[in-house]
């Protein structure tokens, strides 16, 4: 199955940034700048994922959701909105949206959410993620290394999955913190905290695989890659 994504976002600069990013992650990204255009595109073709902005020039993106769901119920809708999730999240999710991402978001987070949604909505999409000799079974959240089951804590699992999904990409401490602990990094002083946890995961991986996949990128954060 083609991993095609329909992006409905009126800001062209953001549209391009997100589209470029998604392309680099192996998706095909089709863009629309308003509701009308988006509906037309969707009417013609099936998209497994729709990224939907809410404040669009010809109306509220929320109105799109019933339309999308009435044509392809399997389509996963992720709202990307500047509006605070406190109010709209409820509305959006009630209308059938599958996830909600508040602007400004981390691109790596968007990638993780899309992958999670694809796994959830399409069972054809493999639930096992492989990286070298590491195997992550996402349905029962277990990890095998060299075919052998290894225990990881919940947070370690989340971190590792996030790293592997965003392979070869620099992940900032802030993005890691927000993804795994769900806290806005602005409100929490976290530099040492992330370091401790990354270090623990790094040691565990090294012990079982003999490799150091998690690189420190000076000044920025961390990167998961083969040498």
């Amino acid at each position, binding site marked *: 199955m083609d991993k095609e994504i329909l992006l409905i976002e009126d*800001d062209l*600069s*953001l549209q391009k*940034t*997100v589209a*470029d*990013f998604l392309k680099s992650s192996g998706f095909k990204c089709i863009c629309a700048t308003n509701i009308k255009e988006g509906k037309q595109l969707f009417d013609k073709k099936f998209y497994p994922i729709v990224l939907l902005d*809410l*404040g669009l020039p010809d109306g509220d993106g929320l109105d799109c959701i019933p339309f999308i769901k009435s044509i392809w119920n399997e389509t996963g809708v992720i709202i990307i909105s*500047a*509006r*605070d999730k*406190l*109010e709209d999240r409820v509305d959006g999710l009630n209308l059938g949206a599958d996830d909600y991402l*508040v*602007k*400004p*978001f*981390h*691109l*790596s987070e968007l990638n993780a959410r899309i992958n999670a949604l694809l796994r959830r909505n399409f069972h054809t999409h493999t639930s096992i993620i492989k990286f070298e000799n590491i195997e992550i079974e996402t349905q029962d959240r277990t990890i095998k290394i060299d075919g052998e089951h290894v225990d990881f804590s919940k*947070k370690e699992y989340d971190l590792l999955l996030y790293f592997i999904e965003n392979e070869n*990409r*620099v992940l*900032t401490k*802030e*993005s890691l913190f927000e993804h795994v*602990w*769900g*806290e*806005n*990094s*602005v*409100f*929490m*002083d*976290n530099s*040492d*905290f992330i370091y*401790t*946890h990354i270090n623990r995961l790094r040691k565990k991986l090294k012990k079982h695989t003999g490799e150091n996949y998690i690189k420190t*990128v*000076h*000044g*920025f*954060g961390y990167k998961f890659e083969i040498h």
Partner: protein
Amino acid sequence: MKLLSKINRTYLRYGILVFLIADVVIILMSNFILKEEIDQQLLLEAEVIAETFEKNGNFLNVYPTDIVEEIAFSKVENSSSKDTLIYDAKHDDLVPYRELSTFKSFNGKHYQIITRQMLMEFDDIFSLFTALISTVLGLIFILVLLFTQKMNTILWGTFNKNVELLKGYSFSSNNQLKLKDTGIEEFDDLNQVITKMSDRLEKDYRSSKEFSANAAHELQTPLAIIRNKCENLFSETNLNDETIQSIREIYLSTDRLSGIVKGLLLLAKIDHGQFNETEEVSFSKLLKIRIDNLDEILQDRNLSVDIYTSEDCRIKMDMRLASLLIQNITTNAVNHSPASKIIEIKISKTQFSISNHGETAIKDPELIFKRFYKESKSSKSTGIGLALVKKIADHYGMKIQYSFKNFKHTFTFKSPDC
């Protein structure tokens, strides 16, 4: 007090006053007139007696009403009348009489002619009139009551309906305020003023709500672009240290700016009353969940949290705001506590408090709830967290107290019910 009962009460109060005055005046007047009348009758009678006496030379006294007595000249006076009491053997009681004494002279002899008439007792008159006046006044009162009630349904009916409409009206719902025509000029004027005012308020409300939504969109989208561009730059390999440092600072400032915008918009939204789903929030539950979520962060800083619960603190408020409040005060405590100390949470029926260790008291406890005020110079802080806490507490009438004792900063939140 209802207008109708106000009218009735005023009417009753003045009615009683008028009744008392009228009662006294009428009784005095009728007493006076009655006596005048009796006196005249007595005088007439006395003249008839005098005539009979003169004609016959004698008169058979009828006791106690008609008496002729011969008296000495020295006792002759002008005729006079007075009230008197005479013993009545039949009733074994003193009975009031009106008495008229006239003096006549026949054939060189002087006579006193006394004529008397029994009077009705004063008490009887008093009760009679009081009863009469009360009945009349009572009747009038009942009629006025019925009349005003009838008027009330006619005149105030549409007005009351409009009041109900106003009571059910709120900006957040989409129904426009439509008041009914009453057909009464004063009420219609009032309706017009209210409609105009509500239209203006609604417009203001909508535009400020729109502003919040637009501000969010217009600010967060560029911030998203800056942040995402920075993230792309991170993957560049040939950057020097200075550039790395700059990009990192741009990236972090974006985060902070976005946090500030979110906070400010939240403050505005609370003011607009956009969070108005109330439910009973259990603070002991909320705090426990929050502390569980913070578990690893607490471990990392070697902090421990002691929760003392005597009874659950339940307050009716919006769950989202309650969570936000808890999130901010716990984050505040964690961020400001030195490592390896204890954070204390105390929950009772009427209040909950959170304490963290500290070296010195906050200089200006009043100021810490102000927007953008920071005690520490930490650039991480947005200076808006506690302002949000205060706003939420104020919104629901909760009181916040700050105290510093035994090297502990304590924030206490008191339930609005106490």
